[in-house]
């Protein structure tokens, strides 16, 4: 961690890792999709549409992993003042938000044949929606503050507050759901998960995790370079000011 704190070392690490990590992602995704689509048996009740689960569940897991990463990075910014922590947090937010969005959309598509509508307010989907909103808040805060130092600290505080709140929100949403006794007792994961479904699920989860790491590293590299460009621009402007004097 300490040796990675140097942005230049980090950039060269990223450059070395990205090619073979991309290959890993492609292989895992290929294997996972093959297993999901052709090997796993269709559900006797839902037919082939159960296979949306192989995208929906890993996406949901990754969105939660992303927020955990942001919370840890927030500690890194506020407590240990790791120089790359705010870069990690800033770039993880859009990726985590996208995974949350994928989880929402696939959840909606999965439910349509069953419920007849594109959306029901069941506990899990609602919690995922609120997680998505938390992500949007982080992204909005990053966009709104120009000065990167202040933006990093503010987003770190917001990230920690959100992380602490997530269990509380989840509990309250579950309680709200039982209050209102929805008509459909359909559970997202099905009553039990058949073991034959577990292997494709874990392969897809591994694929998505590798994809997250890949995208995250690329995004961090881009952000570091973007900040360098900005610093260079400022130096140029200052030199122009000195040259005129």
């Amino acid at each position, binding site marked *: 961690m300490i040796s990675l704190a140097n942005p230049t070392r980090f950039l060269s690490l990223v450059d070395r890792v990205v090619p073979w990590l991309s290959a890993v992602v492609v292989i895992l995704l290929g294997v996972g999709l093959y297993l999901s689509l052709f090997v796993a048996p269709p559900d006797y009740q839902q037919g082939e549409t159960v296979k949306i689960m192989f995208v929906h569940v890993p996406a949901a897991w990754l969105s939660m992993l992303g927020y955990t990463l942001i919370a840890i990075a927030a500690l890194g910014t506020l407590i240990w003042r790791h120089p790359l922590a705010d870069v990690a947090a800033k770039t993880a937010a859009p990726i985590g938000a996208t995974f949350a969005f994928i989880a929402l959309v696939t959840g909606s598509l999965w439910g349509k044949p069953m419920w007849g509508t594109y959306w*029901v*307010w069941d506990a899990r989907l609602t919690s995922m929606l609120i997680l998505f*909103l938390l992500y949007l808040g982080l*992204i909005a805060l990053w*966009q709104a503050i120009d000065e990167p130092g202040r933006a990093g600290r503010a987003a770190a505080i917001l990230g920690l507050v959100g992380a602490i709140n997530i269990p509380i929100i989840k509990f309250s949403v579950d309680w709200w759901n039982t209050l*209102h006794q*929805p008509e459909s007792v359909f559970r997202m994961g099905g009553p039990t998960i058949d073991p034959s479904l577990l292997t494709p699920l874990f392969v897809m989860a591994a694929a998505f995790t590798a994809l997250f790491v890949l995208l995250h590293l690329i995004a961090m590299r881009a952000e570091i370079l973007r900040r360098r460009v900005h610093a260079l621009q400022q130096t140029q402007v200052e030199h122009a000011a000195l040259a005129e004097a």
Partner: protein
Amino acid sequence: MSTVRALLVRDIKLAWREGGAVGVALGFYLIVVAITPLGLGPDLNLLARIAPGILWVGLLLAALLSAGRIFENDYEDGTLDVLATGPVPLPVVAGVKCLAHWLSTGIPLVVLAPVLGLLLNLPMGAFPSLVLAMLAGTPAVSFIAGIGASLTLGLRRSGLLLALLVIPLYVPILIFGVSAVTPYVSGPNSVWPPFLILCALSLASVVLAPIAAAAALRTALR
């Protein structure tokens, strides 16, 4: 004409470049719609019946909260002084800025509305009338917001004050806007009369609101 176009293009450019301002308005719309079922319960039939109302109220609030931007920025850095003494009459300046708000913020909100309608179980048959009604009504929303924005320039608590001033003026838009959508949801009344009234409200605001806004701006610039 090129002067008016230059002003319109500049304002839209600034709206898109200013740290996610449009995104925040869209995010706010999403949040307001998303928390309503948490307060009311997930009964899909209930949600479907109240969806038009929630979608319109959310849109009005999101548009209002982004309306402060219409003149505030230019007022604070002195640009409004120069715009006011340019070749374009001040009512036209005010009108162009309201138009820029409609194009950069109003229309994206309208595009988001059907997606949020999915969350509220709005019947998909109602989507076209929802979008058309909102497209007809949102010009009035932006232009009337412009009046409020010009009245509250530079004041403390201007955002809340703006909402307080403008929401009563929004009541006709809300009533006719919801009526233009609900026949698809609850009854066989025609959509046309409310829709045409919305168009009339928008046309009237486009013409009259800039005059009021310009008068308010002149007072603020003194």
